């Protein structure tokens, strides 16, 4: 014990001296701190800040021990069978950027005292049902408890403990997610709303959109009662198999299928809004294709929202938009193909000078370039939907091959090969 106290006093002195280097200036003054040399300057970092002097003013620099050396010294002085003494050194090591050594010491503490809460916490472990768990395992346990309906244990014990040890933002979001759902399922609607608002603010799309939708739903139905206009899931009424999980009528948002039904209704609203914009776009396709394109992009934003809330719900509409945009491109491409055909017809008709002939060929190449760019645009649009748009992709690929072959011939002709 006396050895531990002695070691601790030395550590304290070192902490005050903030390192161990000793600098003596030509004017007789001296400073302690961590010294670094940069070109013609000597920089001293100490507990109160940083000062620097020209190298020419310095008489001598006496190097002191590094934090790692200090730690080694102290380890030799303490009683290694005393978990608290080892733990104090582990804390010191962590504070002095010696995380590897700190972790080793913490594990040593845990070997000495399996229930050493401080060491376990610093190792990122939490206690659940008398067992210490690493953070990833504890998060899994928390999710299991959520599904098992153990909300009180979660909210009062496990989640606060997890919040203390979780450092990464992804882990902290997951904890907040579990907290929000635990609050919701245990009918703490107002608290749940606040948690989902936080989640919406801290996460990125599509998660943030979904969390915002949950928060909005809880704001709108502050008493947690949601009136289901139809049974959920809706396919249960159409297809044979297990019946609906929830019948139509008033139901509690604390029940996961009711929340899912509420979210589906939000997604449905987003789809309806998107369809209205799509209808406007369809009307503009012939007369104002650029405006139609803008409208389709706007519709896609609504579909993004719907898909964020219920993944995949807008898929078939996205395919439809791509199909319609391909039809629009094909229309403009056919105009260019017509120009190419007209120029080709000119080739055989007239008695052309070499210059006129060259100009015609250049014109044909330009028309083909535009067709090629349209075909590439089609392929780019269709590529996320290879299965649904296999015909469009095959057609565009074949046409592109044809256009490239024609272009090659024209280029050879142009360069007199």
């Amino acid at each position, binding site marked *: 014990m006396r050895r531990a106290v002695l070691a601790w006093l030395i550590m304290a002195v070192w902490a005050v001296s903030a390192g161990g280097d000793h600098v003596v200036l030509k004017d007789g003054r001296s400073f302690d701190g961590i010294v670094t040399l940069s070109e013609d300057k000597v920089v001293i970092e100490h507990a109160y800040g940083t000062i620097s002097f020209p190298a020419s003013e310095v008489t001598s620099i006496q190097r002191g021990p590094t934090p790692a050396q200090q730690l080694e010294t102290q380890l030799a002085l303490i009683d290694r069978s005393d978990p608290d003494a080892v733990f104090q050194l582990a804390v010191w090591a962590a504070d002095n950027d010696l995380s590897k050594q700190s972790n080793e010491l913490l594990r040593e503490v845990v070997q000495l005292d399996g229930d050493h809460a401080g060491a376990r916490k610093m190792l990122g472990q939490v206690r659940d049902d008398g067992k210490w768990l690493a953070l990833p395992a504890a998060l899994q346990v928390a999710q299991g408890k959520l599904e098992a309906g153990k909300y009180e244990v979660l909210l009062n014990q496990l989640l606060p403990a997890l919040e203390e040890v979780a450092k990464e933002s992804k882990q902290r979001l997951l904890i907040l997610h579990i907290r929000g759902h635990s609050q919701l399922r245990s009918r703490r609607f107002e608290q749940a709303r606040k948690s989902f608002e936080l989640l919406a603010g801290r996460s990125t799309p599509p998660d943030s959109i979904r969390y915002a939708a949950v928060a909005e739903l809880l704001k709108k139905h502050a008493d947690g*009662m949601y009136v289901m206009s139809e049974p959920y899931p809706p396919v249960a009424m159409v297809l044979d198999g297990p019946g609906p999980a929830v019948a139509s009528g008033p139901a509690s948002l604390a029940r996961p299928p009711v929340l899912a039904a509420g979210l589906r209704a939000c997604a449905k609203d987003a789809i309806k809004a998107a369809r209205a914009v799509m209808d406007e776009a369809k009307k503009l396709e012939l007369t104002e294709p650029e405006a139609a394109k803008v409208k389709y992009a706007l519709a896609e934003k609504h579909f993004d929202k719907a898909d964020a809330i219920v993944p995949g719900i807008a898929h078939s509409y996205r395919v439809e938009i791509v199909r319609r945009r391909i039809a629009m491109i094909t229309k403009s491409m056919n105009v260019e193909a017509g120009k190419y055909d007209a120029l080709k017809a000119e080739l055989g008709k007239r008695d052309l000078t070499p210059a006129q002939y060259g100009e015609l060929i250049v014109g044909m190449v330009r028309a083909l370039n535009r067709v090629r760019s349209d075909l590439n645009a089609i392929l780019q649009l269709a590529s996320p939907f290879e299965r649904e748009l296999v015909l469009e992709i095959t057609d565009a690929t074949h046409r592109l091959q044809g256009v490239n072959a024609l272009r090659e011939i024209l280029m050879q002709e142009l360069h007199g090969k």
Partner: protein
Amino acid sequence: MASRTAILATGLLVGGLALAAGIGGLTTTDRIQDALSALAESDPVRAEAVAAGVVGSERDGAWRAWIVVAAARQRQGRHRQALEAYRQFLALCRDPAERTYAMDRIRQCRMAFGPPPRPVPASKLLSRQRRAELAEVDSLQYTESTEHFVIRAYNASLAKLVGSQAEVALRRICRIILFGQDYPHAVSIYVWADVAEYRKHAVSAAEWSGGSFTLRQDASGQTVRRIDLTQRDDDGNFDVAMLDRILPHEMCHLVLAELFGDARCPLALNEGLAMMAEAEVDNSRVLLAGAAVAGDRKIAMDRLLLMDRYKAENVAVFYAEAFSLTCFLHRRLTPEQFREMLAHIKGGCPLDEAVQRALYVPYDEAFLERLARSWENEAVRQSQFLKALHEEEDTAS
């Protein structure tokens, strides 16, 4: 009976208030949630008592518990009292979706305690004498007009009857296809004395048909909407099928043609809807559809939906399955979902995609197969049920 129910309801309300007094520490939200739990646990009596207590407390937001009271009463089969509770809820509710739900439930309650009389096909109401009168053919063509129809027939009384039955059929069709919307056009109906006259005058008469419809633009750009029918059968009797089946069937085709415009409506769906529009269900179709899907004469659903013509050997199965499938979809989907499904088919979606869009669910490639299986199961079930019913009737007689 009514007074006993009223006493029970009052008792529940008083019980609810007593319950409210006993759980004074709980918030309105807690108590509404308790009521919802009871409802979810199939305990409508407790749900009603708890919710009635919330309503009686007159705290902020307590009025919302009326919908729990209403649902609990409806689940107990107390439709009149449920209706009253839905009304109370509607009086304060401002949420459009919740209002729509409550109004829909009020309709359901009304239907439950006062279902409309089952419509009787017009032909069933005709005496022998009346049929004989309707078979008479004058030399003059008479014209009769109704809200949507102008009827021309060689029998004044028949023209009147066709007019009234056309309106009845149109209402039925609007309910099935147009989700209750009105059909805003006028249609000419021509009733020809016999098949020979019909074939001579009808604009688009198939050789075997006794009725047809026309939807086209005339030379002046006016849209011609017309139905041609036949008054008498081959034996010279009044053709009752014309009233009950052919008139609504052709009218449905006309409405669908107008609704779909240039878009393609699968023939099976088109014919299925037209058969649904007929005045009564032809059970032989139900029996045949069940037998076909269970046996080797089945036209698989994917093929059925792609057929745009049928051969003589499978025409009966085609019609039976088309009717069965369309009825299945109409029964399983809500009216709004059915209307949306038709709109998506009109927009170019195949049936499975149209149904999934109407249900607002993520697209599932296996959906068509699952839908086909569910329909086939139901077709077989219904056919077996009818068969058993017939056997029972035979035994009884």
